[in-house]
């Protein structure tokens, strides 16, 4: 059974926001909406201070609270581990937004563009009215994952079928692949390192692993 996961090596992330920009370009999200974000966290007191960059997005939980509360079944969990939204079913009640402990979901109620109500040519071409008034979030670039089933390519190995953020990462902090495949890069990496998943105490079983040290 395939289960796609992402690993993010916090030791490598330099906070360049290239993944944020790549996601924005790949998914044409509206102004103010970023499915992929990199948080800049400053901690400690002088002189012992630290700065940590934390990339976040939908964690594609194995036990997604957003799926349980959704009254319409618009949010579903796929067999390959991806949490998907059917925009044609969603009523935009925002129950899933409240249920997500990772701040991963958002709803845009009116179309806005970079320069107001009138889209630029590029925005007009990629504007998707189906995404207005419904819940949306990172899809792990699901169209690319689905393409792999047709082409026979391997997500996490072949860039054409790998999420845009992972492809764009300049430091190699982000890896993607099938955790059930012991030979996948992400499986090997997780064997060699110490890592955690955020808010595990909530029982969500997220599919994003944060690496913080070697084993």
């Amino acid at each position, binding site marked *: 059974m395939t289960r796609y996961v992402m690993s993010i090596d916090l030791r490598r992330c330099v906070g360049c926001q290239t993944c944020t920009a790549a996601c924005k370009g790949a998914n044409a999200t509206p102004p103010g909406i970023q499915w992929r974000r990199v*948080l800049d966290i400053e*901690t400690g007191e002088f002189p012992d201070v630290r700065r*940590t960059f934390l990339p976040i997005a939908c964690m594609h939980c194995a036990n997604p609270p957003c799926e*349980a509360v959704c*009254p319409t079944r618009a949010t579903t969990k796929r067999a390959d581990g991806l949490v998907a939204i059917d925009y044609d*079913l*969603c*009523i*935009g*009640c925002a129950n899933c937004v409240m249920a997500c402990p990772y701040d991963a979901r958002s709803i845009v109620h009116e179309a806005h563009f970079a320069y107001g109500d009138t889209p630029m040519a590029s925005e007009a071409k990629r504007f998707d009215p189906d995404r207005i008034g419904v819940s949306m979030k990172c899809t792990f670039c699901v169209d690319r994952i689905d393409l792999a089933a047709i082409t026979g390519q391997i997500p996490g190995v072949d860039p054409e079928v790998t999420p845009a953020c992972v492809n764009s990462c300049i430091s190699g902090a982000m890896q993607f692949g099938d955790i059930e495949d012991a030979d996948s890069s992400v499986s090997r990496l997780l064997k060699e390192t110490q890592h955690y998943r955020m808010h595990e105490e909530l029982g969500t079983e997220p599919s994003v692993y944060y690496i913080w040290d070697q084993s």
Partner: protein
Amino acid sequence: MKKPFIRASGLASPKQQHNWDWRAASNFIAGGAGGGLLLCAALAALAGLDAFAMRAAILLGLILIGGGLTCVWFEIGRPWRAMNVYRHFSSSWMTREAVVALTVFAAGGLALLTGASALGVLAGILGLGFLYSQARILAANKGIPAWRHSASIPLMVATGLAEGAGFLACVATFSATSSGSAVLLGLLVLIAVRAWFWKSYLNGLVADGAPDAALRVLKALGPRLLLIGHALPALAVAAALAGMPGRAALATAAGILAVAGGWVLKFTLVRRAAFTQGMALPHLPVRGKGPSGPAVKPGWKIIGQAHKV
């Protein structure tokens, strides 16, 4: 209008939710009171509440529930798809709330038309189901620590019942029978129950942890809720039961205060204290040969540090 600048570091902290505004809050405020009123009316009918007051209470309960659902209909992003809400009964409390609402309107509507007390009792039981569903909707939201705490469920149910008893106390002043004392005693008991569950909820939240901002908002509510929602209505009820003059005015004042206290509580819980979970790092990354840093959870007290109310 210039948008406020948010530092990237601030994005990791819990933030007040803005997706459920006053319209969603109105569903919990009015709908919960309506469900509570239906149950209280059913119990009062068994204790001798006359048919006119019973029908008035049922009508008011249905109006409150309908009003709340109408408010929330105006909030959802795709209102013309609202019927899709019935698609996930197996796990969604929002679906269950919608299903129970249909049965409440059916039983309540028939009770109004026929005046059959059995249907009124059935509407009351279903009203309790509606109230419970609403409490579970909040508690199922893992992204909001102030809601997901298990103690929020009895608190939401208790305040819905206290508000329902408050409305019934107002309605019962028009009753021709001597059921008024039973209604007032019931109101007094439910005010005490709500006060106990409020204290229990706040203590539980403090002990188990919540965003600092949420705890500040809820702690600030405590004294006002004690005065407006608990002490003053309890005094008014006690005065009315003791036979002081102006019994109807005292009962009405107690009812209004009990409702007002509950509505302030629910608005605070749904809107003002609804801070998100925020982010956390159990370990900071090791850089070079140095050690890992301590755990970080912006906007929360240091993990393990006790809070005191």
